[in-house]
């Protein structure tokens, strides 16, 4: 501080030195301006695809969007024009919801084990490696795995099979992201808690988890968003439904992603409109969940100061 302050004070005594950008040599000013422009251009380029996707989906999907579109049955005859994605909206909510219910508690508890108990033990290292491997398993493989172990075993395609497949996909993401978040909680907090006489489980529940909750929520949301958009495992495990079927254990089901795939591959105008509408609905649902989860996380998080 003093080193930089001294010349300034001296300068003030004489004439104030010019510290503005114009005082820099032309080459440096040029490089600075050039780099700023370049970085801004990169930013634009990066958000361009995002913007285009949103623009395209909204402009094509908004036309068919209506309350009826969100609630009406899917037309059996794909050639027909007009609304209906109710079955898929319900299916997406219950299947993804059930998958989240299965994967998030399990994943967070797994992460707590890894970071608080297992640490660098052989078992913990093994689980960590397996979770990393599982993250890379293609979703269709998970779908086929559930098809063989669940669908064939119970002899029916239903929503729960889809939820299981999605849960398998979400689990490794939840475990790894939650563990990273728990690792960021400073050890001082744990030691302080222990010094006050709290047991280990109490420390975890009241100190560690609340400190990391915001990050855990983000990680879990990422997993939910990924699961909601999965098509392949859904197609092989849940079958089909045209009317809303909130029962996960009886009868076929369908999701928005599966319906986008189904309808977009058809040549009929009505089906393609429905596919765009379904895409818009899916984006809106994911966005809505992100906002809700952020609000919840903000409520439970320890206040930073």
């Amino acid at each position, binding site marked *: 501080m003093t080193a930089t302050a001294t010349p300034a004070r001296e300068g003030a005594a004489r004439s104030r030195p010019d510290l503005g950008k114009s005082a820099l040599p032309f080459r440096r000013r040029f490089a600075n301006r050039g780099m700023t422009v370049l970085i801004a251009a990169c930013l634009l380029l990066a958000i361009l695809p995002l913007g285009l996707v949103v623009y395209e989906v909204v402009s094509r999907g908004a036309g068919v969007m209506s309350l009826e579109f969100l609630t009406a049955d899917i037309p*059996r*005859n*794909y*050639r027909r024009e007009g609304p209906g994605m109710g079955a898929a909206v319900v299916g997406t909510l219950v299947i993804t919801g059930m998958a989240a219910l299965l994967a998030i508690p399990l994943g967070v508890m797994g992460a707590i084990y890894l970071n608080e108990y297992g640490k660098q033990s052989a078992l913990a290292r093994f689980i960590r490696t397996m979770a990393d491997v599982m993250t890379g398993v293609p979703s269709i493989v998970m779908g086929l795995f559930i098809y063989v172990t669940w*669908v*064939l075993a119970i*002899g*029916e*395609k239903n929503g729960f099979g889809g939820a299981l497949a999605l849960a398998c996909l979400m689990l490794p993401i939840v475990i790894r992201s939650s563990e990273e978040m728990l690792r960021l909680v400073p050890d001082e907090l744990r030691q302080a808690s222990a010094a006050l006489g709290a047991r280990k489980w109490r420390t975890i529940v009241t100190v560690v988890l609340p400190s990391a909750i915001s990050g855990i929520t983000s990680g879990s949301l990422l997993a939910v968003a990924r699961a909601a958009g999965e098509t392949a495992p859904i197609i092989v495990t849940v*079958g*089909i*439904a*045209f*009317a809303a079927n909130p029962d996960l254990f*009886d*009868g*076929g089901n369908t999701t928005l992603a599966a319906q986008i795939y189904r309808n977009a*591959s*058809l*040549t*009929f105008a009505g089906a393609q409109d429905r596919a765009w509408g379904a895409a818009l609905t899916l984006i809106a649902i994911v966005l809505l969940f992100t906002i809700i989860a952020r609000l919840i996380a903000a409520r439970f998080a320890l206040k930073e100061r």
Partner: protein
Amino acid sequence: MTVNVRGKVLPLLAASALALGVAACGGGDSADDAGNTGTSDLSGELTASGASFPDAYYQVAIEAYAEVAPEVVINYNSTGSGTGKKEFGEGLTDFAGTDSLVGDDDPVEPGSFLYVPTVAAPITVSYNLPGVEGLQLGQETLAQIFQGDIETWNDPAIAEANPDAELPDTPITIAHRSDGSGTTTNFTKFLDEATESWELGSGDVVEWPSDSQGGEKNTGVASIIQQTEGAIGYVDLADATGSELVFAAVENADGEFVMPSIAGTTAGLEGAEVAEDLSYNPLNAAGADAYPITAPTYILVRTSYEDPQTAELVKAFLTWLLTDGQALAEDEFFAPLPDSLAEQALAQLDKIQS
């Protein structure tokens, strides 16, 4: 799932249904309902998957059936014949739709199922060649096009049959099914039986020339044709018409060039010989009006169902499909069965044990 089968139905159906014992009170729990006059209130759920070829008709029929039996939910998943047979064999579905017969490769146990023919329809040879309509294709030419021997549209073999058409030198893109498909079976079976040049054999999956394009289900092939100039492919009439594709007149057994139509299909059906298991082959049937690539389509049902109520539901739906349901076929570009075959199919349902 509560299944409550009493006895219901449409006056038209009642007679035949009774005769077949279909209206029998399978559920039994409320069969003694005094006000019950032989009509049934069926309820329950049927799961089915299979052929995409008759999907358009089945979906319309299922929708119409919902007005007859409002408590019955039927979900037919258009997955292609191959997947349909597989899921049926694995016990995931109550019945399957298929355009091809069950082969040795299909995981369906012989003797555990019955064929129930439902409707038939022409397979169009659709193409995308702006400015060229009413193309006429000979059988040998068709075989050579689809195995890649003829590579451009202005090939002399095509030009010979179409003296008036201005054929461009656009390369031909073959569009075919990528999934296991009964449509592929019927189309290749036609080429295999009718022509000498066809060398690729026939089946649900065929080894197409390497520069061809595969699409999923009939609608997938339709979309390839729609988007690719110079493409040619085989698509069912309903999807080809729905996708506004242009299709060719194909040379039939009598040497006439016939456009695909319901009338041409019916003409083809009449010339077909029906086997004992009710499979039949209307391909390349004789008759000047017969469209040569006419495909049958079947529903596979089990000879016995674990749940007797499922058996009742399947019987009731198929009975309706083979009687009143046939009237819906033509509007969806499918040909209803000739009366004699429909009767045989109804009799086939009797063999389902419950």
